[in-house]
């Protein structure tokens, strides 16, 4: 299973963290510091796997962002690379050629998408289209609720005028 997902910028800034195994706040900070030290310093041609505390961390760099996933020793590293790529493609479709800024200002959306992709550290949906459809449906639910709320407040405002 995937124990955690990290998105780290080249400068070492954390852009997204998702923990599927229990780590206390202190451990989380330590893990992030340790791993960014290891991963950000690795050369471009080296393999995408780092052995770390009995686990493996699979990472891949997309532009200025490193996508990292920590897995068990016996898991399939090559598949994790595909999952990372899968996630990036979905983000790309959702934001329309995604960049780091999209993920900073819409970090919650990045989380929503990840939650449609992984649960309990396991892959949930192999189809990019399905994920996009589910996210769109939920986004529209939020939009409708917003409109309703504003129309209600308009009505109230007019009534109390």
């Amino acid at each position, binding site marked *: 299973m995937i124990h955690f997902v990290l998105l780290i910028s080249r400068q070492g800034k954390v852009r997204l963290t998702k923990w599927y195994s229990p780590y206390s706040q202190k451990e989380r900070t330590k893990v992030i510091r340790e791993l960014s030290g290891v991963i950000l310093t690795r050369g471009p041609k080296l*393999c995408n796997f780092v052995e770390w505390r009995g686990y493996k961390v699979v990472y891949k760099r997309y532009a200025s962002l490193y996508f990292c996933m920590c897995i068990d020793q016996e898991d399939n590293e090559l598949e994790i690379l595909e999952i990372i790529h899968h996630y990036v493609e979905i983000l790309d479709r959702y934001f329309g050629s995604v960049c780091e800024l999209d993920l900073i200002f819409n970090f919650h959306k990045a*989380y929503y998408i990840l939650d449609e992709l992984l649960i309990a550290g396991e*892959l949930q949906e192999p189809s990019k289209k399905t994920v996009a459809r589910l996210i769109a449906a939920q986004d529209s639910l939020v939009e409708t609720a917003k409109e309703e709320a504003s129309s209600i407040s308009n009505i109230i405002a007019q009534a109390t005028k």
Partner: protein
Amino acid sequence: MNPFSSGTRLRDMIRAIRACKTAAEERAVVRKECAAIRAAINENDQDYRHRNLAKLMFIHMLGYPTHFGQMECLKLIASAGFPEKRIGYLGLMLLLDERQEVLMLVTNSLKQDLNHTNQYIVGLALCALGNICSAEMARDLAPEVERLLQFRDPNIRKKAALCSIRIIKKVPDLAENFINPTASLLKEKHHGVLITGVQLCTDLCKVSPEALEFFRNKCTDGLVKTLRDMVNSPYAPEYDIAGITDPFLHIRLLRLLRVLGQGDADASDSMNDILAQVATKTESNKNAGNAILYECVETIMSIEDNGGLRVLAINILGRFLSNRDNNIRYVALNMLMKAITVDTQAVQRHRATILECVKDSDASIRKRALELVYLLVNESNVKPLTKELVDYLEVSDQEFKGDLTAKICSIVSKFSPEKIWYIDQMLKVLSEAGNFVKDEVWHALVVVISNASDLHGYTVRALYRAFQTSAEQECLVRVAVWCIGEYGDLLVNNVGMLDIEDPITVTESDAVDVIEIAIKSHTSDLTTKAMAFVALLKLSSRFPSCSERIKDIIVHYKGSLVLELQQRAIEFNSIIMKHQNIRSALVERMPVLDEATFIGKRAGSIPATVSTPTAGSINMPNGIAKPSAAPLVDLLDLSSDDAPAPSSSGGDFLQDLLGVDLLSSSKTSGVNAVSQNGTDALLDLLSIGSPPVQSSPSAHDILSASQDNKTSVSPLDGLSSPSYPNQSTSAGVTPVMDLLGGFAADPPKPEDNGSAYPSLVAFESSSLKIVFNFSKPPGNPQTTLVQAEFTNLSSDNYTDFVFQAAVPKFLQLHLDPASSNTLPASGNGVVTQSLKVTNSQHGKKSLVMRIRIAYKINNKDVLEEGQVNNFPRGL
């Protein structure tokens, strides 16, 4: 509206934080925002609750504390609308983890949401539950999740399946409830449901043997068919990756088949065809295809044997290994490690390539390859492989040297065909990476050197040469210093020259130079320096021409601020100054170290520590020396002549042998000297060759010694002066005095009672007492018959009672069976056992024995150990 609750939107806050130039600025912005959010929380502000939580999540990601927002998540989750719930659940998953008490409060909301009519809300609840639920929550909500496995919408079913994985991992007892619903998931067509169903099935099989049995019998064929359909399916754009339909599902199916096939010939048989098809048909030019091949190889390696398939798998790995992509090479190495148990020969064929990988620029690959090489070494290839690795050691990265050195040392000691090769390789490693070598490794090397008596000259000369080039490698220095101390004369005289050696001219003063460099070097640590002192003492006797110089070096350290060095300097100085007559005997060469004992010590160190709790109550009326006996005493042990106690070398023997014990030595030996009073070994040692009764001359000695020391060492002086009057009576010998001069009177007098020897309490603890009775067979003075009597002092019967004894090499021990292996409680009966001990050095050395007693109280194992070194003289 609250004036403090800042109206800033999330976007504005993020912008403000990003605009910060320094960390302090950022902290200020965050503090202001947090204050505003806290104020809003206190106001119970509802309009901006979701915005505040979103801000908190961002702040949390930056690493600031956000615990005060946890309750806000719960409030949002409890509200009615989807937008609030969505952000609330996200916050819950981000800000909390399963170990927080607050999480329990959400159980009820989760339960309601799992039963909600809006399927997206159900989805949110399932996602949260799957990501952070605790064991209690898993128990409470398992029925809801189980029901949702049959929900009409497939997107809920797949979420429920993954949620179930978390539940059965947290509470494996619940596994059986999920077996049947899972079986129906495996028949689904929807990829999301199928993929999660297969995953759930795999995890069920891991936690529950019944589930494994069930799925193996019922589902193997179905799964094989699903995989076959997948492999042969036409192009499906929705799931296509690099020309393969849904590689994720491929991989999960292969993994489940592996679990089902492992250990079951029938199941393995039914999947052979499809595995062969996957292995041959899958395209290997893209990562997705390789991921499937990799999984397929692992499955082939794990299921029951099928020769043809394994050849196929090894060939795929061979192809991977020669791939230019580092990722592929990495997984190939990883998989070859598993393959090695299946087919060593096939892996051996790739040895050259693997060895190349050890030198790769990528640390991950190097590490894998090194592990693999380590597994590949055997008697026939150890020499070339070690040569490669040692050569590489010279050019490898600093951070890799530690791993590499450990592996080389392990290989060399495990497979070394002859001693000279072992010594050569170890010297190479020490000169290249001596700072990375662990203590056990060079300890073992010293033992081997000591045992290779024909190589002493060769070794010491090789070490001398190595020292000239690699004096900065700590462990090399230690071994060199030890060997020069022991075999310095062989170094100078070129004794035992081998044909392969170049002649070398070393003067006595050159040899002393080495030791002096070691003492004075700033990089040498305390242990090294302490060892160098011992070497100097030894050389002072071996090289009379350098005696004065050595004395000067030692005297220089009498004022050292490091207690250990100061103490050694003072002790050794007094030996050099005052005891010319015994010095040469004192510093004789170490006896050959017993390899078997050393290996036994290493292996036995674990049970020894286990036994400490039970051994805690052991009292030692008769000098059952616990292993921490005076190291300094041992260090000076000549193992010749009539020193009774130390020849048993009770302590950690390598420490003793090297005299490396630090700091605590003076205390330990001091206490020992007092408690054993009459048998103080050091006293004994130093009184060799002096008249047996020496109370008055020794008193003078002490006087002069302490006066001598007065000038440089005032603290010791303070100790020694008041104790002076005691010396003549020899009753309460001050330990420090013993160490300094060590001339107190009253060495143990041999108790020559003819052939009648007194009985001896060999061991006594709160629970067990052992008494030895001695007798000698007529006409054979070397042999002693020992009748051991065991008495149970506790109120429980002992069963499976086993007494074991070990003796040094000069003794031979024969144990007869005990009269019984049950020892009745409260001393109601005695078990006896006969031992026959033959002393090959009768008259020179006394008996000494280590004993170990194992038994069971109420079926609980107990282990006690001790050492007997107070045998009557003359046995």
